[in-house]
Structures are given as structure tokens and as C-alpha cells.
């Protein structure tokens, strides 16, 4: 490095971490901004659902009360996926590469299982997005969620690829922390979707 003639070195301060090292970077804040906006999107989706439910004269829900077994099992699977992701992040923060890799792989497998079962659930529905406004809402809301799951799964694949190459350690885990934060959001917002589309149908009879 070039020596600097002019700047007079006055004093030195305490060491500061550089960039994303040892802490979650500005990207963590950015992800929170993204999550707030995405959460607002789901709030407006669910507002639309309840608004139409309160105003419509159509039979509600279309095709009778939704069956709960499959979606409830699927909800548990998705939440378990979040637990695996949490395990992965906890591992990398402690420098345990194996926990990181297995945790990410587990989150990926469980997340994919959720997506597969959700496709089956879609297939089982007696209505479509174009049969009635209920179907339009059901498939649009779950479709938006599925799109978020898809983005999350691609993200998990990328994190796993980085983890298998040994990119991350206890000093440099911000990418993992930020990616998993998004995955937790995808799982948390599903609880709101599940409660609205499935459980509330029973409560609001």
C-alpha cells in the first residue's frame, strides 16, 4: 500500500469489524425492509379475502368447508423446515460446518416436501381459479405464497452450495443469516395464510 505523506495520523480508535464480518451486515436490514413490504402484500391479500367473504352472497367457502388433515400436516412440515434452518444458522455461528450443511439440506428437503404436498392440495380442490371468486382468492393467495416458497428454495440451494464449498464460518455468516431470515418469513406468513383460508372458515360459520 502506498505510504501517505500528507494525512497526519492523529490517533487510532478501537478496532471495528470490516464489512459483513462477525455481524449481520446492512443486508440484514435490507431483508427486514423486504419482509415488511412482503408482509404488507400478504396483509392486503388477506384483507381482500375477508372483505369479499363479508360482502359476497355466494356460498362460502366454495365447495364446502376445507379438509384440514393434509394442510395441517403440511404446516407442521414447513415449520419443521424453519427449525432445521434455525439449526443450520446456529451451527455456522458456532463454526460447526456439519450442522450448517445438514440443517440447510433438511430445510431444503422439508421445504420441497411442503411445495409438493401443496401441489397435491391444489389438485384435490373441486374448484379452480376461474370458477368463482372464492377460487380466485384461494389460488391467488396460495399461489403468491408458493412463489415465495419457490424463491426461498432456490435461495436454500444456493446457500447449501456455498456451505458445501466451505464459504461460511463463525466470522462470515451474514449471507446465511440473511437468507434464513427470509425463509423464516416464508414459513411465518404461511401460518397467517393457513389460519385465514383453513381455520377461519370453521370459526366464521
Amino acid at each position, binding site marked *: 500500500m502506498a505510504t501517505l505523506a500528507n494525512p497526519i495520523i492523529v490517533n487510532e*480508535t478501537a478496532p471495528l469489524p470490516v464489512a459483513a464480518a462477525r455481524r449481520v451486515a446492512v443486508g440484514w436490514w435490507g431483508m427486514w425492509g423486504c419482509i415488511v413490504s412482503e408482509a*404488507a402484500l400478504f396483509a392486503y391479500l388477506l384483507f381482500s379475502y375477508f372483505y369479499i367473504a363479508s360482502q359476497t352472497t355466494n356460498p362460502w367457502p366454495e365447495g364446502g368447508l376445507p379438509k384440514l388433515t393434509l394442510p395441517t400436516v403440511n404446516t407442521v412440515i414447513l415449520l419443521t423446515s424453519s427449525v432445521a434452518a434455525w439449526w443450520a444458522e446456529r451451527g455456522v455461528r458456532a463454526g460447526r460446518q456439519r450442522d450448517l450443511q445438514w440443517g440447510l439440506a433438511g430445510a431444503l428437503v422439508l421445504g420441497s416436501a411442503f411445495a409438493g404436498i401443496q401441489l397435491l392440495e391444489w389438485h384435490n380442490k373441486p374448484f379452480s381459479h376461474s370458477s368463482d371468486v372464492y377460487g380466485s382468492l384461494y389460488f391467488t393467495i396460495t399461489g403468491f405464497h408458493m412463489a415465495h416458497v419457490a424463491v426461498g428454495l432456490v435461495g436454500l440451494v444456493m446457500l447449501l452450495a456455498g456451505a458445501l464449498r466451505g464459504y461460511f464460518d463463525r466470522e462470515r455468516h451474514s449471507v446465511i443469516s440473511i437468507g434464513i431470515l427470509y425463509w423464516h418469513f416464508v414459513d411465518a406468513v404461511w401460518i397467517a395464510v393457513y389460519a385465514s383460508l383453513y381455520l377461519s372458515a370453521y370459526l366464521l360459520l
Partner: protein
Amino acid sequence: MIPRPASVELERRPRVAQASFDSPLAERLEAIWKTGPGLHGQLATVDHKTIGKRYLVTAFLFLVVGGIEALIMRIQLAGPDANFLTPQQYNELFTMHGVTMIFLYALPVLSGFSNFLWPLLLGARDMAFPRLNALSYWIFLFSGLFIYSSFVLGHAPDAGWFNYVPYTGREFNPGVNIDVYAIGMVFLGISTTVGAINFIVTLFRMRAPGMSIDRIPIMMWGTLTSSAGNILAVPAVSLAFFMLWLDRRHGTHFFEVANGGRPLLWQHLFWMFGHPWVYAIVLPAMGIVSDALPVFCRRPLVGYTPVALATVATMIIGFGVWVHHMFSTGLPGLSLSFFSAASMVIVIPSAVSVFAWIATIYTGRPVFKTAFLYFAAFVFLFVVGGVSGFMTAAVPLDWQLTDTYFVVGHLHYVLLGINVFPVVGGIYFWFPKFTGRLLDERLGKWSFWTMFVGFNAGFFPMHIAGLLGMPRRIYTYPAGLGWETVNLVTSIGSFVFAIGVLIFIINVVVSLRHGTQAGNNPWGASSLEWLTPSPPPSFNFVVIPHIKSRYPLWEDAAPEKSERSVLDQGFVLDHGRETLGSSALDAHPDTILRMPGDSLGPLLLAIAITALCAGLVLNLAWLSITACVAAAVTIIEWLWPERFLAQRRD
């Protein structure tokens, strides 16, 4: 190439040094930060100052286009029974005029100011997410052109900027125009959202040491509040337009009564977004006045804390007033009462700010420069627009005035008064910082008085036309209803206003070449951007200043005992593109932030998203899918962990 250190450090004691803008350190920083040469450099740059200027120029071009659309309409309306335009042409023009001014001018122009100024006001070297910043500009540009492409397709949106169903359903409006508008708005929403996140994170993470949250300029409160509002409000309109597109093209029934949907759902979603948006496009402009007006009154703003709190309060209440756009839709009385009351309550924070500005002028020693005139005029126009807004907040009066020219007059007083006047005043104020030269004062005075007289002559009679019963959005009117005079005066006023804008543009063009050299701080202003040369170097600050007061450049006038900011001595941070990260509230240094270099990623991603939107509108599945894959690849490349950013091990 940006010189980068060979080994990657995890922590460092940052050197503190004293240095000026002509030191060897400044040269070294210039080599690190400057944008690369040639076309590649221009397309790949992430310099917030370049992006800010691009935002300003692009938004102004949209303003000119929207203004020409308005003038064509005013020719048609100047007299009764005119045939200058067909009804269809008129519908397309008033729709595109609204879309252009509200979405493609009003917020982007404020983003231009904020982009250029944000790091300079904070004592930082760039935004928190430089590439995201470039992306938000490219998407703004491309989505604007995308919406305008409907003219090329021969059929522009024609159902008004708020695009009510069922007019916009496929049954009544089968063309591609509404689809272009719908997808274009979802597209533009990406730009607004990522831009807003960038402002918020930058503000909370990148302030110079000592610049605690109660020392930031009011403009930052305005943009912070507006950004927070956008993050929460934009999804509503994106969703509404997306649902409309699904209804039109994919057989869903959100807004169709026949299959259980509800047209009012559109109005709710649109105005849940629309009203916070109104505050998003005025609060940063009010912030411009709160910061720049005191400079010309030679004193600090009266009531910093009340004005900052009023800014935040306005936005919070602004989320609870959307139904006042829907008073005539047959909603229950209780709902009308609540939203009417909330709409009146919002007067209180607005009045707090107005009295603060008046008190600043009254207790100061005003210097009557052009910028001051624009800001003072803003206060007057804001009061006029505020009073007519307060009037329509009363439900019975609203029932009489809704969909008349009274509302058109009101919204133009509010949007031009609170956005255009502060923006033009802001350009007079910051032009020297943008370009190094001052705008001409003589032309400036001419531009101001022409705009001010033209504006009031053009828009005040609209209130009268409305009280006389003239509905909005009619392409012509019969003689003998008593509307001829007010319409003729309005048309003349609008052309006078346009001449004022033209004089302003001439002033900009002439002063770019021949303006007086400005120096660092031509107005004797108080905030950090005036510490830097005009225009500022690529790295903004040689050393990161240390802030001890709200007005770091006015401390000579402060009491002897008060602490002084340290402006010429601070952290060097020169191991590549670096700036300081600090804690959210008290701005205590806590990180050395590293910035990514120039990148074509933002441009490529914006192109991919443009292709995706085109595919969605034109129903080309192959194009949409290819574009999605291209976008995904670009994003993965963008986010892939980098050693320099300490995101991965060697």
C-alpha cells in the same frame, strides 16, 4: 479497476487523519471511487450522485410530457363545443397526464433529490445498497417507457389514473392499454419499494459519528417517513393491478359481481395505497422547504422537533383516511364519520408545519433569492390547497363536490403547490451543488413570477367551475352553462404557467454553460453537503466528519461553550470503497462498511424484468419464462458471496 487489498481483514483500527480535498489522500480516494470510463462506465455506475441527477432529469422530462398533454387538453376546453380532440383522445390524454405526473414525475423527482443528497447530508460516501440504487433508477426509466409504449401500440390507458373497475374490466375495455398500465404499475412498484428500503437502511446505518437521530435534516424525516409509507402502501396498488390483470386475462373474478366479486375492492385497495402515496410525494418536498427556507431566513428552522413529529404523524394518520375518496360510494354512515374525522385531524400536523415556516420567515432576516420566493409561495399554496382539502373532508360538502372541477382544483393546488414549487425552489438551491454553477437570478425571478401568476390564474378558477357544477373528465361542454369564462381563464393561465416552466428550463440550459462559479457553499447553508466542493468528488468526503450539532456549518454563530463538530479530521477508510457504519439512533461508529463496485447487474436485471412484463402483456409464455430465468441468474450472480465484502472465506 478498484485497488483492493490482497488479504481480507476481519477487523481494523481505522486511521484517523486530517486531510483536505486537495490532499494526496483525496487523489487516492478518487482513484478508488470514480466511475470507469466510456459507455460501460456510464451503464455500470453506482455513484449515487449520477443516479440522483439521472432521476431528476428523467422525472423532469416526464413532467414536460405530462405538461404538454395538459396543454392540449386545455386547448380543447378553452371554449364550449370544441372539436380539437375526439372523446377517446381526450380520455387517453387525461389518463396519461395523471399517470405521468403522479407516478412518473412526483415521487421520482423527490427520489432524485434524496439520491443525490442522502449520503452527502449524512457524511457518508454512498448509499447502503449502491447496486440496488442503480436498479431502482433503471426500473423507473423502463417502466415509464413501458407505460408510454401503449401510445405506440395505438391505444393508451383511458380510464383515469385511478383506473376504476368495471370500466377497466375486459368487457368494457378490451384493448391492451389497461394491461400495459396494470403490468407497468406492478413494474414501477419494484423501483419504488427497493428505493424506499435503500433510503431507510442508509439513514439508520450510515450517519457520520455524532449525528444522532435528532440532528438529521428535516428533509430526511420527510424521505424516511415517505419511504416507510411506500414500503407498506405500494403492495396494495401492485396487488390491485395484478388482480385486475388476472381478471382481464386469466379468468379470475375479484372485481366481477356476477361471480361474487366486488368492484369496491378495487377502490379500497387503490386508495389504501393512494392516500399514503399523496403524503409520500409531498412530505419530502415539505422537508426540502424546512431545510432550505431557513438558509434564506438566516436562522435555524423554528420548531425542529414539532415539524419532525408532524411529518411522522401526517403519514401515520394518512393511512387512516383512504375512504374519503369513496364518500359517495354508499358506505355505511359510521365509516364515513370515522374517515371524515380522521381527514380533518390531519390538518393539525400540517398546521404545525405551516406555523413553523411562517415563524421562521417572520423571525428571520429573509434574503429574497429566487429559491426563497418558491418556498414562500409554497407555504401560501399549501394553505389554499389545505383549506379546500379540509372542505372536502366534510361528507355533505364532498357529496356536492365529488367528481367536479373543485376537486381538480384542490388536487392541483396540493400537488403543484407542495411538490412542483418546492422542487423548482430546491433546484435553484442545489443547482450549484449538482453542477458547480449558480442559476441566473434575473431569469429566476421571471420564471418564478410567471409560474406563480400562471398557476393561480390557471387553477384557482377550477374551484369556481366546480362550484358551478362542471364535472371533471368531460371532453367538452355546451355553451350557456356559465362555464365559458372560467375555462378560458384556466386555459390562458395554464399556458402562462407553461411559459414560466420554459423560462426555468432555459435558465438551466444557459446556466449550465455560463452560470457563475458557485464555490463550496454559495448560500452560507448549514448542512454537510455544502462542506464538499461543487460538484462533489466521487468519494464525497475525504475523511468522515464528526458531528456535534444540528447545523454543523453554522457553529461559528453558536454559543462559545457548545461543542464544535470536527469537519476536516476523521476516519480515512481507504482500503477499497469503504465508508462508516454507525448505530441506528445515536450514530456511534460500529462497522467499516464496504461497498460493491460498479456493475452491469442492475441494468441487466432491469432489462430482464422489462422482458418479463412485455411477455405478460403480450401473452408470450416463452418470453416470460426466459426472462424469469435470466432475472434469476442475474440475481444469483449479484448476491453471490464476495471475499472483499467479508461474506465468504478465501
